[in-house]
């Protein structure tokens, strides 16, 4: 563009510069429309890895279905093991997308635009991975519809006082709304893809999926209202989902589970983990697909700030667990605090503190926040840390019951690990299919951003 790029008073560049409406559309759709031979090795490598690892999942499910949940490491008193840990881990990761697309939208944070689509897709895939665990944990997944209220010959209804049933409603609502939100955002882009692709069959598919979007002013008007409403609905929804997940634990009377800070602290942990996962994929993608002008260091900086902030809330949660565990005056609560720090699973607790509390403090530094390699490494620590957090909550609380006659140790079996690692393969596969078939950055929103920038420059 001919005019000079306008910087803000801190000398920062705008979130997008040097692009026009058509060049930005071109650039993003190229990732999807590029001929199969030109695709980067990164994509082939990622897809290959994903497809390989996902076989592990299929095999683990096959064995589970034929032999039953006895192949897992569950025992008495640890009746909730890897399945719940992995469920909460994945569903937490699945919060970043909706957070970025809904909450940041309401706060009019323009930097969300270039990361929203990718994060939303990851949300969906993470919810798919998460949903597998409770589905398989019921033992007979083909009877999972029993969870829903439907008229049946027993004349019975689900137990609405159970937090596990709240979870059924929360997660299925979340999945439905996330898909609708994602799809609604995609519709104008599918119309762009229709224009950009040369393949006749692909044109037809994109056209069909875009529902015949024309970009009529009246349609845009309703579309914008609908998007705002969806954002307004998705915001409380995303906060409620992890809050309800936390209630699975918190409404019991188990020390280490039953504490009132759980809902906000789980939500913060979800944001923390979700942003770490988005950055884990965003950093290689922006480098390999040459998208550094759309996914700038400024974006990374902002995401790291959100991560630091949510990480501090999580740390506050840990502090509250310790303080109120002691302050309660209850010997069981106090024992739980000591048992975490000094019990048989103490290493996992201290590793958690290292990953989630200490390492993220590096993000206070601007230099580290804008260094892709450092951010990538920190994100890996956070992902591990958030898994450990759920391990600490689930296992350490359960393995020491009120009576010492019901004390036992717990360890995941090879099938537990196979399931867990297998879902990572599923996630990878879905992400790479997405990169190949749909625009990974919301094209029309980027056009809007360019449009806004142009008009801002004109007014000066």
């Amino acid at each position, binding site marked *: 563009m001919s005019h000079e790029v306008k910087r*803000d*008073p*801190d000398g920062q560049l705008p*979130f997008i510069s040097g692009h026009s409406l058509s060049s930005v559309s071109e650039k993003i759709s190229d990732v999807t429309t590029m001929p199969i031979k030109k695709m980067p090795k990164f994509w082939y490598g990622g897809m290959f890895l994903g497809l390989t690892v996902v076989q592990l999942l299929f095999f683990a499910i096959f064995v589970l279905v034929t032999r039953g949940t006895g192949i897992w490491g569950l025992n008495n008193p640890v009746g909730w093991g890897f399945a719940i840990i992995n469920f909460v881990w994945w569903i937490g990761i699945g919060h970043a997308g909706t957070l970025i697309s809904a909450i940041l939208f*309401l*706060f*009019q*944070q*323009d*930097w969300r635009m270039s990361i929203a689509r990718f994060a939303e897709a990851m949300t969906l895939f993470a919810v798919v991975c998460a949903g597998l665990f409770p589905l398989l944990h019921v033992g007979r997944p083909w009877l999972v519809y029993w969870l829903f209220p439907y008229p049946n010959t027993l004349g019975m209804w689900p137990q609405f*006082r159970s*937090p596990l049933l709240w979870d059924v409603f929360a997660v299925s609502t979340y999945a439905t709304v996330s898909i609708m939100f994602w799809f609604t955002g995609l519709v104008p882009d599918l119309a762009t893809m229709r224009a950009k692709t040369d393949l006749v069959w692909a044109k037809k598919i994109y056209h069909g999926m875009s529902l015949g979007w024309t970009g009529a002013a009246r349609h845009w008007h309703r579309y914008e209202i609908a998007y705002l409403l969806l954002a307004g609905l998705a915001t*409380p929804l995303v*906060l409620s989902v992890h*809050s309800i997940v936390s*209630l699975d634990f*918190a*409404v*019991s*009377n188990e020390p280490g589970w*039953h*504490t*009132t*800070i*759980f*809902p*906000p602290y789980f939500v913060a942990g979800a944001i923390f983990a979700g942003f770490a996962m988005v950055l884990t994929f965003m950093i290689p993608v922006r480098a390999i697909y040459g998208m550094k002008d759309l996914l700038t260091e400024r974006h990374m900086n*902002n995401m790291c700030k959100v991560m630091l*902030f949510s990480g*501090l809330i999580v740390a*506050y949660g840990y*502090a*509250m*667990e310790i*303080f*109120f565990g*002691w*302050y*309660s*005056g*209850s010997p069981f609560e*106090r024992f739980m605090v000591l048992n975490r720090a000094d019990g048989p699973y103490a290493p996992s607790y201290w590793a958690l503190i290292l990953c989630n509390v200490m390492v993220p403090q590096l993000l*206070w530094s601007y230099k580290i926040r804008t260094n892709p390699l450092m951010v990538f490494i920190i994100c890996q620590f956070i992902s591990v840390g958030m898994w450990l957090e759920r391990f600490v909550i689930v296992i350490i609380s359960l393995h020491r019951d009120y009576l010492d006659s019901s004390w036992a140790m717990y360890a995941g079996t090879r099938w537990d690990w196979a399931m867990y690692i297998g879902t990572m393969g599923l996630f990878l596969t879905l992400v790479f299919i997405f990169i190949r078939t749909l625009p990974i950055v919301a094209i029309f929103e980027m056009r809007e951003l360019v449009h*806004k920038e142009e008009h*801002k420059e004109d*007014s000066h």
Partner: protein
Amino acid sequence: MSTELPHLPTKLKEMQSLSLLIAGVGLSIMFLAWIFGVANFYQGYLVGWLLAMGFGAGGILILCIHHLAHGGWGFLLRRIAEASALTLLPIMLLYLPILFSLDRVYPWAIRDANGVSVYANDPVVGAKLHYLNHGFFWLRWIIITAIWSGAAMLFSKFSKLQDETGDMKWRRKMRFIAGPMALIYILTLTVGAVDWVMSLEPAWFSSIFGVMLAAGHMLSMLTFGIVFLTWLSKWEPVKTAFTAKRQHDLGKLLFAFVVFWTYIELSQFIIYWHPNLSEEITWYMNRQVGGFNGLSWFLFMAQFAIPFLVLISRSTKQNRKALFYVAFFLMGMRIIDLYWMIAPSINMPVPEARALYPAETKAMSGSAFHLLDIVGVVSFAALWFGLFLKNFRSRPILPVNDPYFSINAEIKDAEA
């Protein structure tokens, strides 16, 4: 029209004098009640003090969020929040009457003839006497007072230098301290919340309590900000600066925090209602009998249901008068919320809950509602408002030298 308006600085000065006069009279009555040992003094005084403290600490919270999130709406609130935060030192000092008679308010502070806490042999409260004791309680109050008033002065100082010099360095300093300060704020507030409110029922605990008070602080400052800005918008420069968009943003923020408050309250309620454990449920039992039951429902309706339905409509948030009334109403609800938090804990209307406490604590309460409650609230509200105006008058009403803020440019609001 504008020629008929009174001169703003004069008007502010008059209001300040009037507020301080009311506060002087009210606080004199309160002190007399304290000296003569009226049992009801404590409840009214504590509710009033928490109200004023909430406005002051809410100022710090708003400043932290403003400097971190950097939205256009924050610039309008900056001066108001700074002036409010500066009231914290005198207000914190007014906790002294309670500190000098802790054993009249807090059961754990009661000592027998040998100077040993009456809870020394209690299996639950006895276990926390290392924390809940006179010396440590005093120390925590001193530290919190020092940190909060220090933070308020720092924010004001940097902001003043920014105004005078226009140097970006001061802006960056404000942003730099905002992050750690937010963290320190919530940690100190949690400690304070446990000390000043939660330990009224020394056996009871809830780990979300600090956040709950913070939600109240945010609502205090936000509602006051909207009310005060609406009033100021009769005059320049707020008339120009308080644009429709900025007002809409403040309205949305108010809506968000009404929902957040409900979220926090409901979380605690569901988590304690569901397992129904005897050491935790007392908090809700005391709020489910007699007048307090009605008050609980009133709080739910008036602090959540009605404002929610009114604020959900965009026409309310964009209508200045409507938003003003909602904000004013919610500002009044702060008093109800605090009274609901304090009074049932002091009065213990449920015999089963009362029975958990040593015999000595039974003499502590007077009646659930007393004239002194009103005197306490009014005099603290007036005192805070007077002190606030004194600070507010001494500086320009809006930031004057911030490159991100201009009085009439909407465009700059969008900057992130």
